């Protein structure tokens, strides 16, 4: 399903089940209005999030990726979010290397009771992504012709052109 042209951008959220997903629920119950761009994928713990998931999202054309878990020290699994914090911080610093604007990625902590905070996080992150606009790197899918050219380059041994 494409995002709504001109109205929405493609923002993916990975939320832990116990705090942030529940916090987003609490925000819903309290009718804390938010922009509609965000699509939430539920994971048991922020520590379940492989940085690969985030890179794959960007590779697939995501304009922004948001991760939210339990506040440090308040993890349902005792220490999952500490692992998450290390991995995600590393990813954030690594993103420029991949050509992805690190501002398109954010991680945060929202507890199950923090409905207003969740609303604020969604609003500010969505605003930020809208300010950045559609992801320039991979916004337009390659055409068949471009794809075929790439394919032939690879077969000819010169690689994709990124690595000389």
């Amino acid at each position: 399903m494409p995002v709504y042209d001109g109205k929405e951008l493609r923002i993916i959220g990975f939320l832990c089940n116990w705090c942030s997903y529940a916090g987003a629920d609490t925000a819903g119950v309290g009718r804390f209005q938010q922009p509609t761009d965000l699509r939430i994928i539920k994971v048991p713990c922020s520590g379940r999030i492989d940085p690969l998931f985030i890179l794959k999202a960007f590779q697939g054309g995501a304009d922004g990726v948001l991760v939210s878990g339990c506040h440090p020290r308040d993890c349902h699994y005792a220490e999952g979010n500490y692992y998450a914090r290390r991995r995600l911080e590393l990813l954030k610093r690594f993103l420029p290397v991949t050509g992805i604007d690190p501002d398109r990625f954010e991680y945060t902590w929202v507890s199950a009771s923090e409905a207003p905070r969740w609303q604020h996080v969604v609003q500010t992150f969505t605003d930020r992504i809208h300010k950045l606009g559609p992801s320039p790197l991979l916004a337009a899918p390659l055409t068949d012709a471009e794809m075929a050219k790439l394919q032939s380059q690879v077969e000819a041994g010169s690689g994709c052109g990124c690595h000389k």
Partner: protein
Amino acid sequence: MRIGVFVCHCGSNIAGTVDCEKVAAAAKDFPDVVYSDDTMYACSEPGQQGIIEAVKEHKLTGVVVASCSPRMHEPTFRRAVERAGLNKYMFEMANIREHVSWVGKDKELNTNKAIDLVMIAAEKLRRDKPLISKKFDINKRVLIIGGGVAGIQAALDCADGGLEVVLVEKTTSIGGKMAKLDKTFPTVDCSSCVLGPKMVDVAQNPNITLHTYSEIEEVGGYVGNFEIKVKKKATFVDWEKCTGCGLCMEKCPSKKSFDYFNEGIGTTTAINIPFPQAIPKKAKIDADFCRKFTKGKCGVCAKICPTKAIDFEMKDEIITENVGAIITATGYDLFDFKKYAEYGAGKYPDVITSMQYERLMSASGPTTGHIKRPSDGKEPKNIVFIQCVGSRDKSVNRPYCSGFCCMYTAKQAILTKDHIPDSQSYVFYMDIRSPGKSYDEFVRRGIEEYGTEYIRGRVAMVYPVGDKLIVRGADTLAGSQVEVEADLVVLAVGAESAVGAPQLAETLRISYDTYGFYMESHPKLKPVETNTAGVYLAGACQGPKDIPASVGQGSAAAAKVLALFSKDQLESDPQTALVNAARCIGCYKCVETCPFGAIKEIEDRFGNAKAEVIETICQGCGLCSVTCPQSAIQLQHFTDNQILSEVKALCPSMMEKS
């Protein structure tokens, strides 16, 4: 695979801002979806029946329900799917209410978002596998943390139900805040007369093991099999020998020790029994004030003790208790009134907290029930009560209402008139909150029969003139400034989370809110459960509560534990990690990472090092899946492939689009 999609209208909750027919129609085009329909209330009896019939009629092998949050109704629909003859894990939910219809206004955008969410649910479902629960034995003992009235009630109910109970209390005696109260509203019952017999019952019940002056050090294990390390703090008195005779208190020369039980009104001895009805009635040395500890010599108590119970060498001790469930009843603490400098709190001796006033009125208190003001011991005639000290005040980060202050102030004003008939009480209030049974009548009685004068408005400042205190505030109903000359000012301090509550929550792996109160699993439907299986809540640790509510929740938590223990075995959640032995290289990174020790090192039949998950211990966090360099260990129901398929559905890669 044959997937059926059911899009719920939830009356107008969803259908109001989401075009449910359009969502159902769009779902028909998703891979493997063979049936799609919208329904008025999916969770209702006919709604569930509709799902079951559709499964049978269309030979569905998986079901997606797009409705409310899975945190709300996932178990409901899993049961329905199971009744239809499918494995209950062949089911996914799309949250189009809390995450869509309730937070977005634009119907077009909402509908589009709902279609996306249904799509990723279906994509995940395509990769779901049937999962079977394992069974494991439960240890039918229960740990109750906190010996206030909620914990006492829970302990007695569990013990009456035949369970072995371990009750751990932080201070030397059970009783909690209620033991400090003089009388209780709205019946003006004597608090210790109501609570005392229950405390004695705890001491005498053979099913209850009591650890007072103890704290929870460590919690390991999981529902059914927790291993608890309890720290028994050193009392410097051998309680096996102590008879509670109180001779040591008579002779102790350090008579200026801070009296915690009496909230610092009056003093006590360094070795003390906190109050006459204490359970257990045993002495403890307060090392901060004891001359033996502060100056190195004294030991009068050791000489005088008829049973030679004093042991200055005593050390903290760690004991282990194995239990199957935990009830947390750690209560609350009082707001530090010193933060209200404008009321002279902590500066003028005659500005006191409501709890201190309670001790002044109590017959077992330092003044044996005669109300005397702390500065000069005179009987006060004009008493001003100020409400909402640390409640409903954003400036001190306490925006919530503590709920019971209005009522205890009404009670204290009534009791003041009983104690000193020629006195006059004034209450500065914001609103009177008296929603309980017979509560409002009680407040009216205070006003009409006891002449309590209520002034609606905040107090601006309290300042001394001579031996009086001038309370200046606004009367917002009259629209004027008022000044009251008071002999004593009582601040109705609000409740805040108990000292150390967040740390204990982290030990127990339960959630707490911004203010440190513990989070219930669902604010309406699961007020006693936490998000951690086998851990329950009772009393004010969850939020400010009065005595009847705390007792009620204590009993409710006990009922939950009794229900849990009515079975001999529990079913484990099968959403656990699973090792693909063919890919596992035996690096054991997962073993190091697992917070629960749920992965063990084994050898396969060729002697190769492999990892293996102990299913009943695994909690399903998935930390190991991310750590594994081989992607050999996968969290079932949340595998890499499943999450990636969701990502891919939302962000189709360039390759596939072209």
